[in-house]
C-alpha cells in the first residue's frame, strides 16, 4: 500500500490551491477592490476551515474511506451511486477548468501560435504519466520541486520589490466591508473548497486522522503566500491590476535589471506550468480514485488515460473562451463547490450518523 506523509499532503494541497491561485487570483480579487485586495486573500482560510471541518467529520465517521466510498456506503447504491457520479463529474469539471486555464495561459504567455489543444494534450500526457505512477510519486515530485520554488520565488519577489509603491494600498478600508467580502468569495468558496479533494486520498495517507489539521496548515500557508502575492501585485502594478488577466505575470514582466535581465516572464510562466501540472495531477488522482470507487476495481490505473482524455476534451468543449472560464469561476463555482464539497459530504455524514449502523468497521474492512 503506497502511503504519503503529512508533509507531502500539505505540499500537494498548497499547490492545489496556489497552482491557479498564483495565476489569476490577485486579478479576481482586484475585480472588487484594489486598495483592500490584501484583505480579500485571507478569506482562503475560511474555505480552508470549512474543508477542514468536513474532513474532520469524514475521517471520524468513515475512517479509511474515500469520499466517494463514504457517500455510497452511507446513502446506498442508488442515491449514493448517483452522488458518487456527481462527485466524479465535479472533479472532472474542476480538472477541465484548471486545464483550460493552463493552456490559455501558456498560449498567451509563451506559445501564441500553437493550438491550445496541443498545449493541453502535452500537459495532460505529463499529468497522466505522473498519476499512472501513483499518489506517492505525485507527493514526491511536490517535495522535489519545493526547494526549487523556495529558491526562485524569493528572487523574483525581491527583484520586483523595486517597483513597489505603498500608495496603492491607501486609503485602507475606504469602501467598507462589502467589496472585501465580495473579493473574498472566490478565494474562500472556489479555491478554499478545493482542499476537499484530499478526502479522496484518505486510504493512501499515513495518518488519516491528522488530515483536518493538515488541511488547516495548508490553508494557512497558502493564504499567507497568496496575501503576500496580492500585496506585491497590487503594490507593483497598481490600479491596472483591475483589467489584467494574469497580474503576477505582469509583475514579473516589469522586472528589469539593466541590460542583463530584460524579461523574466517566460521563466515565471514555466514555473507556473510545473506547478499547474502538479495541481492537475493532484485533482486527477482524486478523479481516478473516484472512478475506481464507482466501478469497484482494485486499482485506478485503468482510469488514468480515459479520464485524462475526457478531461482534455472537456476543457475545450465546456468553455468557449477564457471569458467563459472566468465567468464560470466568478458566478457558478462558489455555489457549486459549496454544495458539492461541503453540503454533500455533510449530508452523507448526517445519514451515516442517523442510521448508526455498525457498518463502519465492516465497510472499512471490505473496501
Amino acid at each position: 500500500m503506497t502511503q504519503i506523509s503529512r508533509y507531502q499532503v500539505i505540499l500537494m494541497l498548497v499547490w492545489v490551491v496556489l497552482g491557479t491561485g498564483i495565476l489569476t487570483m490577485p486579478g479576481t480579487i482586484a475585480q472588487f477592490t484594489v486598495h483592500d485586495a490584501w484583505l480579500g486573500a485571507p478569506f482562503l482560510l475560511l474555505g480552508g476551515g470549512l474543508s477542514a471541518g468536513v474532513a474532520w467529520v469524514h475521517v471520524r465517521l468513515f475512517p479509511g474511506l474515500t469520499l466517494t466510498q463514504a457517500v455510497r456506503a452511507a446513502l446506498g447504491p442508488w442515491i449514493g451511486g448517483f452522488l458518487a457520479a456527481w462527485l466524479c463529474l465535479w472533479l472532472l469539471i474542476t480538472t477541465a477548468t484548471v486545464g483550460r486555464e493552463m493552456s490559455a495561459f501558456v498560449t498567451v504567455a509563451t506559445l501564441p501560435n500553437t493550438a491550445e489543444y496541443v498545449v493541453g494534450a502535452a500537459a495532460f500526457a505529463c499529468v497522466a504519466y505522473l498519476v499512472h505512477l501513483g499518489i506517492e510519486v505525485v507527493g514526491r515530485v511536490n517535495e522535489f520541486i519545493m526547494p526549487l520554488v523556495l529558491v526562485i520565488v524569493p528572487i523574483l519577489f525581491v527583484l520586483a520589490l523595486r517597483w513597489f509603491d505603498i500608495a496603492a494600498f491607501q486609503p485602507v478600508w475606504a469602501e467598507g466591508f462589502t467589496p472585501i467580502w465580495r473579493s473574498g468569495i472566490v478565494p474562500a468558496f472556489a479555491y478554499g473548497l478545493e482542499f476537499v479533494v484530499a478526502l479522496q486520498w484518505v486510504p493512501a495517507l499515513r495518518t488519516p486522522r491528522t488530515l483536518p489539521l493538515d488541511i488547516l496548515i495548508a490553508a494557512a500557508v497558502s493564504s499567507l503566500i497568496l496575501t503576500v502575492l496580492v500585496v506585491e501585485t497590487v503594490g507593483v502594478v497598481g490600479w491596472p491590476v483591475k483589467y489584467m488577466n494574469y497580474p503576477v505575470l505582469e509583475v514579473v514582466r516589469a522586472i528589469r535589471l539593466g541590460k542583463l535581465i530584460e524579461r523574466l516572464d517566460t521563466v515565471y510562466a514555466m514555473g507556473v506550468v510545473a506547478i499547474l501540472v502538479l495541481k492537475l495531477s493532484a485533482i486527477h488522482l482524486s478523479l481516478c480514485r473516484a472512478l475506481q470507487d464507482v466501478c469497484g476495481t482494485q486499482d485506478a490505473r485503468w482510469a488514468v488515460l480515459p479520464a485524462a482524455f475526457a478531461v482534455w476534451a472537456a476543457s475545450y468543449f465546456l468553455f468557449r473562451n477564457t471569458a467563459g472560464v472566468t465567468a464560470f469561476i466568478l458566478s457558478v463555482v462558489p455555489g457549486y463547490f459549496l454544495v458539492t464539497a461541503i453540503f454533500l459530504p455533510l449530508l452523507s455524514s448526517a445519514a451515516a450518523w442517523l442510521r448508526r449502523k455498525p457498518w463502519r468497521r465492516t465497510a472499512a474492512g471490505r473496501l
Partner: protein
Amino acid sequence: MNGVVGMGLALLCGVLQWRFLLRAKEPGAKTARLVWCVLMGAGMVAAFVAGRQDFPSLRPLGWLETVFAPLTRWLYEVG
C-alpha cells in the same frame, strides 16, 4: 484538427490499455470497461464538437449556471 488530434490520442489510449480492454478479470472490470468506453466516447464527441468553429454556441455548463448562479449571487450579496 482538434478532432483529429482527439482521434489520435484516443487511439493511443486504446493501444496503451489494450490488455485491460480485452481480458481484465478483476472484480468490477466490466463496469470499468463500460466507464472507459463512456469517457472515451464522450471525450471524442466533445473533442469533435469543440473543434467545429461553425457549431452553434453551445453552453454545456448552462444547467450548472441555472442551478448554482443564484446561490453564488446570494453569497456575494450576503456581505
